[in-house]
């Protein structure tokens, strides 16, 4: 049997979950032995193979049309989709902005911040992705495995990866399950 292929991507998050993934330290070599780590934001290959991967991992919520595209592409190209971290699972910290309108949020970010001078202006390049409400991944595409945590503990990530690499479905409970 060939090694299962794993690919990851990030959307509206802080990259902290990927940092936590790297925090599994030397254990990443074991994962590399068991699985074929393909495209990730921290490897050279940037998009999951068109021929498909076994496991797709997404960090971050979905807050614009570009993220929607990333989520749909990953869903299409993977067999098992993992939502990694609170942003992917619930919307996380970025979802705080859902309490305000998009206009209010943009105004606050680009015009009203204390460090912005009178030149502040909301970007309006038509090529930019269009902003939306912040959503959890499962609101946009079906998710198979949820790994909550802000960020999830490296031990939890290692457990999830090693189970998936060995063709098993990880079951998060007890000590392995905690949110922040």
């Amino acid at each position, binding site marked *: 049997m060939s090694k299962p292929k794993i690919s990851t991507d990030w959307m509206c998050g802080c990259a902290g979950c990927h940092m936590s993934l790297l925090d599994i330290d030397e254990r990443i070599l074991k994962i590399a032995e068991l699985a074929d780590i393909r495209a990730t934001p921290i490897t050279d290959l940037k998009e999951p193979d068109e021929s498909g991967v076994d496991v797709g991992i997404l960090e971050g919520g979905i807050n614009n049309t570009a993220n929607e595209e990333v989520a749909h592409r990953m869903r299409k190209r993977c067999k098992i989709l993992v939502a990694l971290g*609170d942003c992917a699972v619930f919307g996380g910290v970025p979802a705080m902005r859902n309490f305000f309108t998009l206009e209010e949020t943009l105004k606050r970010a680009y015009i009203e911040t204390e460090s912005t001078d009178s030149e502040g202006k909301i970007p309006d390049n038509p090529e930019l992705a269009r902003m939306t409400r912040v959503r959890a991944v499962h609101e946009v595409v079906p998710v198979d495995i949820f790994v909550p945590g802000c960020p999830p503990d490296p031990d939890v990530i290692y457990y999830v990866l090693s189970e998936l690499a060995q063709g098993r479905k990880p079951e998060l409970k007890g000590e392995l399950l905690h949110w922040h």
Partner: protein
Amino acid sequence: MLNVTIDGKSIQVPEGTTVLRAAEQAGIKVPVLCDHPHLVPFGGCRLCVVEVEGMRTLQPACSLPVSNNMVVKTNSDKVQAARKFVLTLIFSDRNHFCPYCQVSGGDCELQNAALEMGMTHWDYQPNWKPYPVDASHPYLVIDHNRCILCRRCVRACGELVGNFTLGIEERGASSMLVCDLGVPFGESSCVSCGTCSQVCPTGAIIDRQSAYQGLEKKVERTPSICVGCSVGCGVEILTRDNRLVRILGLWDSPVNGGVLCKVGRFLPLDDDRERITRPMVRKDGKLQPVSWDEALNVITAQLKPLINQKTHGVAAIASPRLPVEALASFKKLFKDGFKSDLVTSLEEGATTTSASLVAQEMGAFETNLEALQSADCVVVVGADLYHEEQVVGFMIKRKLPANTALVVIDSADNEFTHLARATLNPVAGSESYVLRGLGAALVKLDLAKGTPAGMNAEAELKTAADKAGIRLEDLSRVASLIGMASRPVFVYGRKVNADTLKALVELSRLAGAGQSLIGVRGAANSLAAAQLGLEQPFKRNGHQAVYVALGDDQPSQRLVQEIEGVPFLVVQASHTSRLTAMADVVLPVEMWAETSGHYLNLEGRLQASTPALKPMEGVYSNTAAIEAVAMRLGIDVTVDWKAELQQSPAPVTLAIA
């Protein structure tokens, strides 16, 4: 007894037991949110649903009483699915975002319940409606976004504290926690007891002082007692890195059963007085830090010549917040060692002298706080339970919905007046006539138990009406309230003099209530100070030196004035104050949370305080400081303080093991 089978386990429980409590007895854990062991079952959250054989739908275990031969399943697939669904709905009702909540990570009962159910996520997103955050209260914040409408706070506010500030407005999805009739928390009738924050299962009611100070799971917990007043409530002191984080009411305490007041819960964390960490001696008009040895040398040089100088020697005054051990050594040092004629406590007997005098005459005449639990009439005489001994006030107020009649007899109105079924406002100083008049009215109404010797009821009534300015019909209305009650309890406070107290004892006997008096006494160890005879007025009269064992107490304006100008002043204190600024020698001592010692509460219950914090190096316990001084002076202060406490008759039976 009823038979019940829970998850295949058969047990017997008394009638009236709920399925939840029966399951607990059988060692089966059923998850709950709205239920709280100290509150009446409510059945609001539905997390505790169980399957009962023969019943069509799932039933809430918390509010379902066991019936005979009931068969219950607490963990079937149907139950599990229902619980997950309940949690999903609660999570999506408001905005339960764990990453930015201060109780997340072990302190949130909602989060813990979901984690126990193995929930990695919930299917429905929240409604994204921002709910208000009420930060108008000095000690508490209500974040409605986190509220799950379990009503624990509402029930605690009513059932435990009797304050009824918190309530719910509207119905269904529009339900909101409100204060009074919808005023900001800080402007409401809240008395800042903080019980709501202690029972809140989520981060909806946040205690400002401890919020975001670290997870409660990661703190050290020390069960101890509060030394804020004479009630002596059980507390749980939460500390982290030798720093106070939070104070909780101790649910297991036989005194307060988990309830605290502002004085016990919040004020200790507000203490921002400067700590004294080294002994200091006045040199060239300025206090200079010195070693203990040097400070003790100065004290010895100044005080040694004053030994046996009765009236021109040392006047000594100690805080009634000190443990009994320190008070007993203090007394032995100054009364027996120095033979001083002025050895007393900061309260100068203000709250204890009447009771001590009456106890000399008739022995113990009081009862303990438990009597309030079954009282159907409470008569409060000369006590302001809104400001002092507040927990006793809570115990009375929470009885009012059960139709307990409250009678207030006070020359001035206080916050209890408007709650009272009847109020008598005698002219100040005429309280004893009113109480005798009430006794006479009892006799006249034929409600008195026992025959008073030689009482002229008509004459007593007339005196009461004349001297106190009370109408006869009011007297007889109050007398009938007391007379009709089967378990009346009388609570008296500091405004009651010995004569009035005697009249009160007589009245309680006529009411047939046996020993049914409760006296509130001011400070944590006021009763102990009184038993040690430390209750004379502090009037300096030619004394050459004053020794103040202040501990962590605050000196009163009057004390500072009385002491001003004394040739030599020693103060042992934990914090700087006007008094330490005047002192010639200052000795650094522990504050309450660092103290290990005993306290005699108003019921005569001897309780031990356990240190939750470690004092700084060089800071002595109050007892050790007194012993160090005594040793230099060659005076032995070892004392059997338990025996000492029992030497004079006490107003209440002392529970000293």
